[in-house]
Structure formats: structure tokens, C-alpha cells
């Protein structure tokens, strides 16, 4: 899931902190946009759709498309509307719609 990144960070000024995504340790820039930092760290996909399990990554980066949904410390949130904080535990939201959902 973590591959060589297709996104380049221009300036490295901020302190990096440790977060976990699906159990993998990542060093991300503190206080920066979480979706952007996960992209730069080479994360793909962020989640799988409940309907077909198709992979998804951020699409709009402005809180409108909800394709960057991730689970942070147990709560499903939009990564693009969240800032990186030390110790965040991130996972893909439960992927398939269950029968009772």
C-alpha cells in the first residue's frame, strides 16, 4: 500500500511526527493537511468503496467529495479536513457494506 510517492514536497520546514496508517509507521509533517501528507508518503489507496471495494484516494482536497475518508482513532473523518497530529492511529474505514447497514 505504501509505494514510491507521486508527490513532491517543496520545502521541509516543519517537524515530523509519527503516525500509523494500517499499522505502518509514517513520519509526517506536524500540523499539515493529513490528506496531503498521506499522498506525499505514497499512501494508495486511502480506502475502498463500500459498494465494490474499489480503491480511492483524495479527489477534491476541499471537503466536498468525501473520497479521502479514513478512520482516525476510531472515528471516520475526511483526511483533507484534518491536520496531522503526533501519534494518530489511522486505518481504512470498514470496507464493505454489511447486510444490516
Amino acid at each position, binding site marked *: 500500500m505504501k509505494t514510491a510517492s507521486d508527490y513532491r514536497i*517543496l520545502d521541509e520546514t516543519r517537524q515530523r511526527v509519527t503516525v500509523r496508517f494500517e499499522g505502518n509507521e509514517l513520519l509526517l509533517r506536524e500540523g499539515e493537511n493529513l490528506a496531503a501528507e498521506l499522498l506525499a508518503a505514497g499512501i494508495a489507496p486511502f480506502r475502498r468503496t463500500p459498494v465494490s471495494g474499489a480503491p480511492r484516494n483524495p479527489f477534491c*482536497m476541499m471537503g466536498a467529495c468525501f473520497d479521502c475518508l479514513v478512520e482516525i482513532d476510531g472515528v471516520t473523518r475526511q483526511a483533507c479536513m484534518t491536520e496531522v497530529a503526533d501519534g494518530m492511529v489511522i486505518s481504512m474505514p470498514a470496507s464493505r457494506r454489511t447486510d444490516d447497514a
Partner: protein
Amino acid sequence: MLETDLAIIGAGPAGMAAAYTAAQSGLSVLLLDEQSRAGGQIYRDVERAANTRGHILGKDYTCGLALVENLKHERITHVTGAAVWQVGQDCELTYSVAGKACQASGKRLLIATGALERPMPVPGWTLPGVMTAGAAQILLKQSGIVCERAVLVGSGPLLYLVAAQMIRTGTAPLAIVETQSFSDMISAMRHLGGALRGWRYLTKGLALLAEIRRAGIPRFTAATSISIEGDGKAQAIRFTSAGRENRIDCATILLHHGVVPNTQISRSIGLDHHWDPDQRCFVPQTDGWGRTSLSAIFIAGDGGGIGGAKAAEIAGSLSALEIACDLGAMDKGERDHKAGRLRRALTSELAARPFIDRAYPPFVPALTPKDATIICRCEEVTAGDIRRYAKLGCIGPNQTKAFGRAGMGPCQGRYCGLTVTELLAEANQKTQEETGYYRIRPPIKPVSLGELSALAKTESAKP
């Protein structure tokens, strides 16, 4: 509940300008915005990025600093990270900040929620690595991140701006695949007079094109049969241009064919909207001051019809003058005196718009895509599904929503609504106006049951 003279949703150019004009007129202003810093999408994070990346993003970005600076006015309360999820016809707002629900009410309400990228459903557009051109700009503005091995696809001056900004970072795009044709340019020539009156935009556009040419970025025009390929993520784009089939290997594909008003809030309140055939989208009904079909509620900026950042700023000030007049903080003479100058500026600001709209029309095959193309990203509903529901008798988007869930996912129709309207209009041979749009219901942003119940407790604790 927090009470204020003017409540504003959205701290982009329209919201920021309105806040300052209203505050200067003596009104108390509550400015709610869901981002952590003011600026909207166009001036996103300008306070942090102007110094470090101003040379890449350009003066049209750094000029937003002045608007942000004005928010320090003592009568403006700017609440950041505030996601508004319910708006009442009585100007009562419910919003969440850091997981806590709050309520506020204004004597007047201004909706300044700006634009969304026009959805561009082409085969493969849901693959990781495919984003809007606006998303790439946000990555650059807010995070100083640039997409590598990118291809820009669609139509409109924004593609040139994004390409030029990428070139300045040292990571140029691989190519620009443009859908507008020579005949679009010919039909735009009718509006050349307007474009010449708005000459600044022409000059800027030509300068960007020169920058792209100097960098040696290939441009393909009148592209058709666009599709994105990839296994698990975008790996290539295919298209036909000048009678030749092309395939470009790439990692990122940035789509754009115009922006449309974000009508989520205006729809949720039940304000009147109409179909704008020139901009090919629904637009809320407003008068020259931005006043909507509910007299206490105003809309300014791109959310009331696309005009761009400068026009939005002027529209925000105009709304604020009328609101100040409504609330007795300004007489009509002063309002009209101040508005006169603004209206002249607005006219010159919008002069080039008809030319731009015709020279860079939407990519028609993405307005009514082929059957197999997903149009509702959330629920993975295809264009063919919608056509099938039309055959079963669905005449409007709310019926297809019930039949196949299009528009029922977390984005609440933001990126499929216009496509569903267009598909149904075409299938049923009705106008877009007759076909209508989704009924949008609150909460218009996700809210937890915990937030709702905490709010109910504060409500019941009231005397």
C-alpha cells in the same frame, strides 16, 4: 445561542470582503469557515504560504493577504474549523467546531460558499491519482506539494495557471490535454469586444501560454474519447486529438472543465434556483445585492454564479452595504454612493466572462457520459443506470436517488447532481429546469450522534 447582526458562511473573497464592509459600517459579524485559516480555496492558506511560495503562486494569489488582514477588525468574530451543517430560513445556524455542536443566529445571513469543480465523469475518473485541477492547486498552496508526472485534462484558463505554477516549482506537467476546439474559439470571437474590455485577463492568459510554450509542454486540443487507464491507480491517459489516438503514461491526472456554484446550503434552505444555460449549471435566484428569495438571506461570490475571485470580493461588499442599509446602519444615499464605484468595477471584472465561457466550454461527453461511466462516485452508479431509471419512468433526480442511490452517499450529490440532471433531461427530452435537482437535506456535513445529543441537552437546559 450566539447572536450577531450578520452571520457569514465562508471566508473566501466574498465572505471576507462582506465581513469587513459590514464591520466598518458598525455591524457585528460572525464569520464561520470550515478551514483552519481564512482565504477560501482561491486564497487558501495565503497567510502562511505567501512568503514561502508567493513567487510560484503569483500576485493573483498573494493579493488575498489584504482581505485576510482586514479580518482583524474588532467587530469581526472569525471562527475557524466551523462546519455548518444546518441553516434555517430564520438565519439560525448549527455548526460543529472540533466535534462540538454550536448554534448562532444573525439578523441577516450571507452565504459565501463559493464554487465546486464541475464534475468531469470520464472512464477511470475514480482511480487513485485522478484529482481535480483545483485539488492540485490546494496541495501546492496549502502544503507546498507538487504532483509529479501529471497530465492536465479538460478546458479553461485554470489549466494554464496550474501548469505555469507547476513549471515554476521545477516539476512541470507532462502535457495539457484540452477539450475545447478551434470552432469554440471562433464562436467566442463574437464576444471579443468584452474580452478586450477585460483585457487584463487576456494579457494574463497569453502570458501563461507563453510560459507553457517556453517550458516545452505539449498541448493537445479538441481532444475526444478521453479515458483513464490503470490497475489500482491511474497509469495512463488515452484520447484522440487531431485525428490521432494518443496514450500518455502518467501518475497523476488533473481534471477541470469549469467550476459551478456550490448550492448545497441554498438548496437545503429551499431558496429559488434557475438553470443558467451559459454556465450550464443551476444558480440561486438573487437580485443586484445578492438578496435571495428569502429577504433576510443573501448570497455573494461564485456560489451565486461564477465570476471569479475579484468579482466575488466586489459582490461581498455590495451585499454588506445592502445589509447595513437593511439594519439601519447606513442610509440609502451612502449605500448607493459606495455601490456605484463597486458596480463599475464589477462590470469591468465580468467583461471577459462571456468570451472565456465560450472559448472554454465544458467537455460535452462528460456532461452526458457513456453508459459504463460511473457518475455517482460515492455509490458507484453509472450513466447507464440513470438512463435505465429514466426508461422506468424516473423524471427527476430525487426519483433516481430512490431507485439506485445516486446522490445518497457521503458527498450528498455534490459531484453527481448536475450529471444526473443532464442525463435525465436528455433521456426524457425535458429541459434541465424541468428536470430539477436533488432535494438537499440537513445535516449537510457529517455530524455524530454525540454532537446532536449534546446539542439537545444544552437546548433542554434553557430556561
